[in-house]
């Protein structure tokens, strides 16, 4: 297709010119005008042929042939609606599943931020050999290489404000530097207050990103100084969805945790959720944090690490140059002086990570399951290809006559291959188009599932963009070639004469090669299904194990929720908070349907935990025990049904006194770790390396899981909880969620401005923490059923085709006295053998690769023999059925009919 186009008229003109010249020569030899022209034409030879030659070489023919092929292909496909429907549907499922998972990956990991020149943005992360010397240290989610908890090589994305200012001053490498941190707050604009996620941002946040407001203005440097008027910028999404796109909100006052802020702008529609998927609905100046939160880290303290720093590289500055200059500054300023963050030999250094796609918390959280799923759908697509290829092979043997005729009529082999490839590309294009539609639906429901199970509200936009379209187009094309090529090559290799001699409806003789190809395809199908099935089996068992896992208390019939008192405007100190907690507890306990009620600092089994260090008084610091900690209200153990092993639980009196040592309840694991087999009751403990007698053990309870259900049981301490901001736990008699409105009324009776938030049942909360496993397992099961169906259809087709081809032979054998079971075995044998080979191969591959699933598994080894065996048996049974059905037809062949078949 690289030929230059030359018009036919141009060519005719050249021929015309040639004849003119030629006849001129003849005229000079003395011929008349007419004779000369005739002689010239004669000497030119066949003019038409020359023109045809020109046309053949031209571009037009290529298009003409393509158009012919497409029309012929469409006609042929329309004439075989069954084949076309099955092939298109199979491909659509395969391509659709791929496009769906890809659009998720695209949404959380690949899509660039919609700001000018996103490739210039870099996120800063430091790493060191030892923990920094800090007063305040935040580890953020979404750090590019994770936030290392191991104390041997701590790493984080948090920086101090003075450090941010120093980085901002590096004008020769960065064209802009911004900092921010996430927050959530109760925001009230006019009507109802709601808990929203937002950001505190430095003054140059919006200008460095290059983002404008759609209404009003964004924040700037003048807003980010202490003493400036408190202002807020609201997200386009919140403005549209919650404020009805009312532009009069501009200039109005809103409250953030009851502090007034004036709305100065609405961000543009496409202003990014900085962390793809985690919505941000308001932005406040960094300097305003001290207004909202009196305990905000100090802006002057170089030992408080609390800010993300993001920089925009100057256009001509490379990443490595900026990194070198940055490190020179960073090392010298963090390892010297009295407040040095690091010691000289800690080798602190900063790495710049590409931030064109924003932060990475979703990417890190979902990367593993998404790539597992991508692998699974890739395998499914291979299966679909194998299936359609199988169909095409069967079809191409039925079409051998057609091919032979075309060949005999002079179509070169290449043209036939091209025709067949055009057909398969048509199929895959149709499959791709339908697949996009499937993908859209599937991706939307996946996102719905993800956000229903996330503690942070997710806003994943899985819209079909050019990248998804391009991906689908590429996949469809590759798929079309993949399943079309071998059958096309084979279909075009024809021995014309014998094929044409075959009578009407008879399928052509099947070549050794084509049956070998079909056999390979069937083996591959079985092996791939085994792979996906094993994955599904392992993940399925993981989910079952997790759901069965013993939490140490009865998780059914517990309602969990938090009560936020900040929106009430009451000045609540700890003493008052304690009283309010107990008042709420009493009201809840009195509700019909509630057997008992208690509260704690936070909920159990939602993926987070508190912790502290305990030691025996007078013992060396090295014997200190790092334990989980949960401050709880009165009646907590009774409500949760955590068994008391020894001593007693807290009484009301324990919550009134503040004399040291305070009472503490520990679990068995704690007792074992610190006291061995000794009696823990009455022992006195110190906390966090203090030398005072802080705690006295009054009771020991059974072991429970705390942070999440996956984690091993950890030593855990329970202390009396006497402060505000509580999570309440209600043991109910029936469905816990049926009580929500009743409970809400009870909260309202205590104070109409108290907010009931984060409501769920305990079992729901546990389900949420294992939703990754549930999601992957559910999808894998779905995919593997699809795979199983595809593979058995493939087997069925193979055996059925064999039966059809051998009807005559079967008739002869039966006429000669063959037994029915012999016929059954004769026809089904190949299917059984191929299935066996496929199963063995599939299991072998699975055994090699399932270890990559290790981190997702719970309570089951990657090569769990039971899973492997049961999958093999399952597939064996389904495959046997797929072979048996067509083989049974062979058994029923009437020899008389069969012999007349020809």
């Amino acid at each position, binding site marked *: 297709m690289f030929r230059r186009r*030359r018009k036919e008229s141009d060519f005719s003109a050249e021929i015309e010119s*040639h004849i003119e010249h030629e006849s001129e020569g003849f005229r000079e030899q003395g011929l008349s005008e007419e004779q000369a022209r005739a002689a010239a034409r*004669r000497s030119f*030879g066949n003019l038409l*042929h*020359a023109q045809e030659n*020109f046309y053949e*070489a031209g571009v037009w023919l290529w298009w003409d042939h393509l158009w012919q092929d497409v029309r012929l292909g469409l006609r042929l496909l329309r004439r075989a609606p069954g084949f076309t429907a099955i092939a298109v549907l199979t491909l659509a499922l395969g391509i659709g599943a791929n496009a769906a998972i890809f659009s998720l990956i695209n949404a959380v990991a690949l899509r660039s931020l919609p700001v000018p020149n996103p490739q210039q943005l870099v996120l800063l992360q430091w790493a060191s050999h030892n923990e920094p010397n800090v007063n305040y240290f935040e580890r953020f989610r979404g750090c590019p290489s994770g936030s290392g908890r191991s104390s041997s090589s701590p790493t984080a994305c948090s920086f101090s404000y003075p450090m941010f200012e120093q980085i901002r001053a590096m004008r020769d490498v960065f064209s802009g530097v911004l900092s921010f941190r996430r927050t959530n707050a109760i925001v009230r604009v006019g009507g109802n207050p709601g808990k929203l996620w937002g950001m505190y941002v430095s003054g140059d946040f919006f200008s460095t990103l290059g983002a404008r407001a759609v209404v009003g203005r964004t924040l700037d440097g003048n807003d980010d100084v202490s003493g400036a008027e408190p202002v807020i910028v609201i997200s386009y999404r919140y403005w549209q969805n919650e404020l009805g796109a009312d532009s009069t909100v501009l200039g109005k006052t809103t409250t953030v945790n009851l502090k007034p802020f004036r709305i100065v702008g609405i961000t543009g529609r496409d202003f990014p959720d900085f962390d793809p998927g985690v919505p941000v609905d308001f932005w406040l100046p960094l300097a305003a944090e001290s207004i909202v939160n009196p305990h905000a880290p100090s802006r002057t303290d170089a030992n408080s690490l609390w800010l993300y720093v993001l920089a925009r590289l100057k256009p001509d500055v490379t990443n490595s140059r900026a990194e070198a200059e940055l490190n020179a500054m960073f090392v010298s300023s963090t390892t010297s002086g009295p407040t040095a963050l690091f010691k000289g030999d800690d080798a602190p250094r900063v790495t710049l990570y590409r931030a064109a796609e924003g932060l990475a918390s979703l990417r890190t959280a979902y990367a593993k399951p998404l790539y597992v799923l991508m692998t699974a759908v890739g395998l499914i697509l291979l299966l679909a290809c194998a299936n359609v290829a199988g169909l095409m092979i069967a079809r191409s043997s039925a079409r051998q006559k057609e091919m032979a005729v075309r060949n005999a009529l002079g179509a070169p082999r290449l043209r036939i291959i091209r025709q067949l490839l055009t057909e398969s590309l048509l199929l895959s294009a149709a499959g791709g188009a339908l697949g996009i539609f499937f993908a859209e639906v599937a991706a939307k429901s996946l996102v719905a599932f993800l956000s229903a199970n996330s503690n942070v509200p997710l806003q994943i936009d899985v819209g079909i963009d050019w990248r998804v379209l391009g991906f689908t187009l590429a996949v469809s094309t590759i798929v079309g070639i993949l399943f079309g090529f071998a059958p096309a090559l084979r279909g075009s290799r024809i021995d014309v004469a014998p094929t044409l001699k075959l009578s009407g409806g008879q399928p052509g003789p099947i070549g050794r090669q084509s049956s070998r190809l079909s056999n390979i395809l069937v083996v591959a199908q079985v092996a791939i299904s085994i792979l996906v099935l094993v994955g599904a089996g392992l993940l399925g068992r993981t989910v079952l194990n997790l759901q069965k896992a013993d939490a140490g208390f009865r998780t059914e019939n517990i309602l969990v929720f938090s009560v936020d008192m900040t929106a009430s405007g009451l000045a609540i100190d700890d003493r008052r908070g304690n009283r309010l907690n107990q008042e709420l507890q009493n009201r809840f306990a009195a509700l019909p349907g509630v057997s008992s009620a208690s509260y704690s600092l936070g909920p159990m089994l939602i993926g987070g935990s508190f912790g502290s260090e305990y030691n025996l008084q007078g013992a060396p610091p090295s014997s200190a025990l790092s334990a989980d900690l949960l401050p709880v209200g009165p009646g907590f153990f009774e409500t949760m049904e955590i068994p008391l092993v020894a001593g007693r639980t807290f009484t009301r009196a324990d919550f009134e006194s503040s004399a040291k040592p305070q009472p503490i309840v520990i679990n068995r694991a704690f007792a074992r770790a610190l006291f061995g087999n000794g009696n823990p009751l009455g022992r006195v403990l110190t906390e966090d390396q203090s030398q005072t007698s802080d705690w006295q053990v009054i009771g020991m309870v059974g072991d429970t899981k705390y942070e999440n259900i996956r984690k091993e049981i950890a030593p855990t301490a329970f202390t009396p909880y006497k402060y505000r901001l509580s999570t309440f736990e209600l043991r109910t008699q029936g469905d816990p969620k049926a009580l929500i409105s009743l409970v809400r009324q009870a909260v309202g009776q205590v104070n109409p401005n108290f907010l009931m938030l984060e409501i769920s049942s305990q079992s729901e909360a546990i389900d949420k923490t294992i939703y990754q496993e549930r999601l992957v397992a559910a999808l894998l099961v779905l995919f593997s059923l699809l795979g199983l169906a595809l593979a058995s259809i493939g087997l069925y087709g193979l055996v059925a085709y064999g039966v059809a081809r051998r009807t005559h032979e079967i008739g002869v054998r039966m006429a000669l006295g063959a037994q029915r079971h012999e016929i059954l075995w004769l026809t089904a044998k190949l299917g059984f053998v191929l299935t066996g080979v496929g199963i063995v191969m599939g299991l072998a591959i699975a055994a090699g690769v399932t270890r990559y699933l290790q981190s997702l598994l719970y309570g089951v080894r990657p090569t769990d023999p039971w899973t492997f065996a049961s999958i093999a048996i399952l597939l064996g049974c389904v495959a046997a059925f797929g072979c048996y059905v067509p083989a049974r037809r062979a058994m029923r062949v009437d020899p008389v009919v069969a012999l007349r078949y020809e």
Partner: protein
Amino acid sequence: MSTQEAKNHLELLQGTLDLLILRTLIFGPQHGQGIARAIQQTSEEELLVEHGALYPALQRLEARGWISAKWGTSLNNRKARFYSLTSAGRKQLVRETTKWKRLTAAIGRILGPEAKGS
């Protein structure tokens, strides 16, 4: 396909037409009919270029970038499409000429003196 009266011309060997065209163009740009005439005359009327094959050959050489074409006016003031040799064509000519000479020399050695005698 030629309808030229049988003058006992030699038939062109496959692939030699391209070489002859390139060689003819070494003297400067020429149109199709001129090329055919030149080959005929230079070979002392031994070789006859079938015009029907000439133009596809020109087309082919042009597509390969060995010759380029431009419309111009011929000596007797007629419009004609002039072909000229590109530098790639010049190199191709050298290559092909060498090949051809080796080939004819080798064939000559094999055919030997008897052939001369006839």
